[in-house]
Every structure is written in C-alpha cells, then in structure tokens.
C-alpha cells in the first residue's frame, strides 16, 4: 500500500498547494507605475461643476492646491471579490494609483487580494508589517477588521470604502449613489419602448439596494412629471426588497436567468447592480435580438467592460470611489488627514454622476437629455423633493 499512499498524498498536497496558490496568486503585486520621486508637483485640474454635465466625474481630478505632498506608504486590501472585479475594488485601487501619480503615495503601493473573509485579518497584518502609513480597506465587509486594527494602530491612517468612519484615524467613504440612480431611472423611463424597465441586484445590502431604490424613485418621478405609466420591476420601494441573484458571480446560471426573467416580462432597459453581474444580461439581450439597453454602475461601463456589449450601455451611474480614495490619501499626504470623519460622495461634490451615453448619444432625444441634466442639477441643489436612501447604516 505504500505506492497508493504516495500517490494520494502527492495528489492531495498538489491539490492543496494549487488551491492556495490559485486564490492568492496576486498577493503583493506592486504597481509598475513610474513615480520615482516621492514629491511631485500636484496637477491642479479645475473642478467642473458636476451638476453641469453628464461627463464622468472621474475625468475631472479635483485636487485642490494643497502644496507639496509628503508621500505616504500605502497598502490596499480588497474584499473577497479581488482587485479585478471591474467594480469598487478596481476603482479603489485606481484611486491609489491616481494618488501615486500626484505624488501623495510612495512608490510601490501594495495591493493584497482577498479570496475569502479569512484573508482580511492576515492581509491587514501584512500591510502593517510592511510599514504602511495609510491602509485602504475596500468594502464594508472589512469593517470589523478595520475597526479592530485601527484602534490598535493609532499612528496609521485608514480609509474604508462604503462604510462610515470607525475611529479618529479612519476616514469613511460613503456614497449617495441613489442621486445618480434617480437620474438614470428618469432616463430609462423616458427611453423605454415597452413601458417596462427592470433592475436587479446581487444581494439586498445597502450599498447595492441604494441603486435600485434611487432608480425606482426616478421612474416614479418621470411618471409624475409626464403623467406616464412606466412600470419598474425588480424593486419594491415600500418593502425595500426586490429581485436579487443571491450571488455576485456572473457565471452562475442564476444571474442570467434573473435577467431573462425580467426580459420575459417585457422590460427593455435594465439596471443590474453588483460587480459583473450585468454581463450575462448583455448576453441575454443580444441572444434575443431585442432592442434593449443596460445601465452600468461604478465605473463607466464602456471603458470598464469587455468590448462586445458596447452598444448596449445606455449610460453608467458613476460612483467615484477612485476620486474619494485619492482625496483621502492626498489629505493625509498634505499633513491634514481626514481620519475621524466620513465623506459622503454625491452629485454636488462630483463623486457621483452619469456617464456619457456613448453609442446611445444619437438615440436619446435632446429634450430628454436636457431634462436629465436638469435633474442632476436639481438634485445637487436639493430642489427636487424625494426621499433619499439613508447612507451610513452600516
């Protein structure tokens, strides 16, 4: 039996090693972005009023003149979706790199990819061991870990994405994404040919549901203003519940089926919220050959998503995680860390917005486009009466 034991042991070891490697393969990847100097002149781009356009806020860097930065060693810990999630982790990491470009981040920032909740704590410990001065934890799932380690390491500055401040040295980044979703809902209601628009999320958690809620309210606003009767499926404002896939894995058959279920009801414009779970929906729309559209979230989908769905993206509800992360690190680097406070990104401060219509530019009537722009302005100025989603519930 020795031969048998050897074969099985070998296979078992191989399997475990591979399982471990597969998960953490991108550990401690350092960026190649060239920034040898620790001090770089800050590029001051003028801030365009976000309310003014449907332009991507991400393109307008809002670095205020803060003088020279003292670069801080930065470490970025993702949640279990990994850094290639084409969503908030990717966007947060982009923010770190943008701050690297302006000289606020010391050369070779570290990114640690988590594959499960068990990785959070060791990754944060690794960051501390590497001498990080600023640690960015990506996502509310890291809240407990962040709170614990931030309290034990008061000299380190922390930034947590999608969560409120967790201590004097933690900057919370929160987003009033329903402001953008509201405008997107209005747009969808104006564009639908079937009179039915749909939306679904990964799981009913506040950072996801806020999109669905704003979207449904935007459609309701359209109905009220225009006397129309556009139906939203997938979100019940009263019950604060709706259609969810139960997973953020785009390859799960359930995701595509959720989208198809809405197409079956006649929905032609759909807002899927959660990582890449909008991709199977694009596939389904293409397979059916119907004239439908998708609304993206977080980063402009036309730039972030694979090429074959280009003409399906009506717009994207932009959530400028990169901008807020960059601002937080830059504040630290300029000697005035924002720890202890929460920063809510919204239309007014440019962290939320609607992306350009790209392929749909010609199909969106000028009148509707103007109305949507007006709504963005009105929301930023607070002149529309609607019930916003409460952020910061945690």
């Amino acid at each position, binding site marked *: 039996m020795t031969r048998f034991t050897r074969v*099985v042991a070998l296979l078992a070891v191989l399997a475990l090693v591979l399982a471990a*490697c597969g998960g953490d*393969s991108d550990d401690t990847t350092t960026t190649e972005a060239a920034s040898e100097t620790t001090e770089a002149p800050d590029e001051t781009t003028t801030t365009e009023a976000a309310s003014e356009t449907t332009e991507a806020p991400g393109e307008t860097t809002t670095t205020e003149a803060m003088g020279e930065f003292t670069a801080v060693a930065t470490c970025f810990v993702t949640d279990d979706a990994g850094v290639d999630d084409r969503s908030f982790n990717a966007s947060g990491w982009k923010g770190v790199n943008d701050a690297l470009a302006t000289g606020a981040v010391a050369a070779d920032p570290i990114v640690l990819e988590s594959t499960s909740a068990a990785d959070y704590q060791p990754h944060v410990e690794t960051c501390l061991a590497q001498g990080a001065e600023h640690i960015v934890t990506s996502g509310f799932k890291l809240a407990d870990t962040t709170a614990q380690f931030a309290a034990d390491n008061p000299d380190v500055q922390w930034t947590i994405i999608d969560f409120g401040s967790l201590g004097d040295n933690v900057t919370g980044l929160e987003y009033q994404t329903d402001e953008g979703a509201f405008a997107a809902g209005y747009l969808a209601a104006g564009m639908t040919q079937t009179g039915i628009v*749909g939306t679904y999320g990964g799981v009913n958690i506040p950072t996801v549901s806020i999109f669905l809620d704003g979207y449904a309210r935007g459609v309701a606003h359209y109905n009220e203003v225009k006397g129309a009767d556009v139906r939203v499926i*997938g979100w019940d404002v009263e019950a604060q519940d709706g259609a969810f896939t*139960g997973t953020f894995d785009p390859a799960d*058959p*359930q995701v595509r089926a959720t989208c198809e279920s809405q197409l079956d009801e*006649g929905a032609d414009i759909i807002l899927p919220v959660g990582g890449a779970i909008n991709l199977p929906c694009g596939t389904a729309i293409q397979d059916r050959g119907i004239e439908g559209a998708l609304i993206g979230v977080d980063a402009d989908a036309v730039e972030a998503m694979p090429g074959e769905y280009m003409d399906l993206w009506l717009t994207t509800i932009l959530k400028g995680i990169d901008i807020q992360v960059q601002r937080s690190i830059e504040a630290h680097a300029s000697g005035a860390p924002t720890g202890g406070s929460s920063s809510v990104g919204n239309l007014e401060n440019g962290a939320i917005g609607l992306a350009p219509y790209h392929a749909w530019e010609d199909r969106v009537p000028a009148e509707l486009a103007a109305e949507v722009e007006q709504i963005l302005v009105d929301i930023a100025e607070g002149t529309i009466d609607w019930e916003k989603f409460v952020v910061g519930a945690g």
Partner: protein
Amino acid sequence: MTATANPNDMIHVRATPEEKRSTIIGAVLIALGAYIFWQFGLGVEPGLQATFNLSLQTDTVQGLAWVVDPRQFSMIIGVIVAGLGGWRLTRRALQYTNLSLAISFLLLVMAFLAWAAAGSQFSLVGMLRSTVVLSVVVVFGALTGLMCERVGVVNIGIEGQLLAGAFAAVVLSSAFGTAAGVLGGVAVGALLGWLLAWLSIRFQVDQIIAGVVINFLALGLTSLMSARILSEIQTLNAPERIPAIRIPFLADIPVLGAMFFDHTYFVYGMFLLVFGIHYGLFYSRWGLRSRSVGEHPKAADTAGINVYWVRYRNVILGGMIAGFGGAFLGLAQVARFEENMTGGIGFIGLAAMIFGRWLPIGALGAGLVFGLSRAVQQKVAILNTGIPSEFLFMVPYIVTIIVVAGVVGRTRPPAADGIPYIKD
C-alpha cells in the same frame, strides 16, 4: 371476508412501510389542501385577476395569456389536493403515492403563483423556460454521478469535473474555436473521470477522498491558471458563444416551443442523454453488465464480466458527461470563465441523483424540481409579494432537503456502491 371465525383475521396485520407512508402523505396532503384553500384561495381579495402570459417576444404566436380568478382557482386546487390526500388515506393503489405527491406539488406551485400574481401578471412561459435552462447543469451532474454509482464507484468529484470541463472548454474554444472547446471540455472531463477510476480501482483509495482530491485539484488548477494566465491574456477568456438552434415548426408551438425547442444543442443533448442512458441501462447488454457490476461484482466476475474494465469505462463516460455540462456552463451561458464558477452545483447534481433514485429519468425530474424552485423564486421577486428575498434564496435548498429527507420514499443505492472490488 365475512367469516369472523377465521382465527387469522384476529391477528393484527402490521402495515407495510409503503402503507404507512401512504397514510402519512395522505394526512399531509389534506392539511396542504386546506392551507391552499384558506391562504391562496380565501386569502385573495375577490374580483382580482391573475394573468399568466404564455408568449415570449421571440415567439411566433403572440399575445397568448391565461387569465384566472386566483380565489376560485386556488380553492379548486385546494379541494383537488385534499382529495388526493383522501385517496392516499385509503391505502389503495400504493404505486400512485409518488405521482399524487408530484401532482400536488405542481398544483401547490400553481396556486401559489396565482395568489402572488393576483391583480398583476407575469410570464409563465418565461418561468417554464427558465426551469429547463436552470436544470441543465444539475441534470448533467446527476447523470455523471449515476454513471459512476451504477457500477459501484461513488463520485464526489462531479463539481471538479464540471469546473475543469468549463475551464478547458472556454480556453480551447477561445484559442481554436467552438468545436475544439467542446471536445476539450469533454476530454478533460474524461481525464478526471479516469483519475477517479484509477485511484479507486487500481489503488482502492477511499472513493470519497478521491473525489474530494479531484474537487480541490480542479479548483486549485483552474483558479491558478485563471489568475496567472487568463487575467494576463484576456483573449483566452473570450470564446464565441454557442447560439441556440430553433427547431423548425416545433419551436413555433406555443409554450412547448419556448420551453423545449429553442435551446443550444447542450439542452437537446441533455434530453437525449437522459433517455439514451435510461434505455441503455435497462434494455441493453451494456446496461445489464453495468448494473450487475454495481450490484454484485463478484457474481458479474464469475459470469465472465471484466469488472475493472466496466468500472473504468463507465466512470470515464461519466466524466465526459460532466465535461460536456461544464462546456455548457462556460460556452452557452455567459461565454467566459470565472474562478469557481460552478459554485457547488455539482453537489446539487449529486443530491438530484439520489432523489431521482439512481434513475436517469428521476435525475431529470429532480433537476427540473430544482430549476422550477429557482425560476419561481425569480418571478416572486418581481411580483412584490412581500416575501423577503433572503427567504426566497433558501427555497431551492429547502425543497432539496425535504425531498432528500425521504419524501420520495425509501431509496436504495446499488449494493456495491463505494466498495472496491478485489479479485481473489
């Protein structure tokens, strides 16, 4: 039976397990019927209508719909279900117990949907089509398990075989085209099938451990290559999607056309495999030999059957089915690979095999029940019924647990299942 003098009549005759089961199920069905009557029937406001749409946008015949009064509809269903329960209580025609259960389950779903859709509408045909699509991977998984267990080899590695099949299909399809992708998926499935057979036949490794090793191996290898290779060379993770093939005429039939005749060839393949394996197992020499090896390998050996060869062959064939199922997942659904994209569906396939009683047609039925519970969940989510979405996620698993926990009656695996055969 008039003579009371016969002493045999005085002896208390104990009920057989089947009779007991019939009684229990009868009582449950009567309670269920009453519940349907009150909750889904009387619980609906009078005057509301529920509309089940029977046409998809892609259908030839448009605008078909079935309008019911949910109150009346559910009350009738409640009476029928209770009636079936009463029939079970009589303990007559025991062979119809499972049929009564299945009919009652479907009627329950219909009454529930009528209740949920009261005053509203939804696409019933879309739901039924979803049911078929969502059951495909589960059925492939169940068939894989069945091929192996029918010859006495337990296959816990279905999940890994599906995953590796999906990976190979996506990468090879991206590089060399669709045909290479599908064949590659099948070949990798076969390879992992051979590995399981080799470990469990040649080395008599505990088959559960061998299966777990295969799962970890597939998960680790594919995740590693996905992170190292696919994230670098993204053209290797962009296969051409396999389109649906509309079967002329049949696809134009309302409802049935959308459900069965407008799919990719994987779905047609699934139905062919189910009926083919059923025929093969019970009406061919191959099937007789396979079953004899799974039930009593020593007797089979004595009769001149090469037990090892039969086991190798079937386990490898099973792996190929899983590889084909993986190719469906990777090429027909989304056309890309994601780490751990099977997400446990192979294990659900294993459960489907058990509650399908190691029968191919049972596996199909079990897969459809799973698919149906997921498809219903999606419709309920958009009907604003107030049922929490978190609860809806649990429904397919609750159904699986209830069914596996013995609702289908006693199931009996092949006698030599999981036992290595050692030739004297």
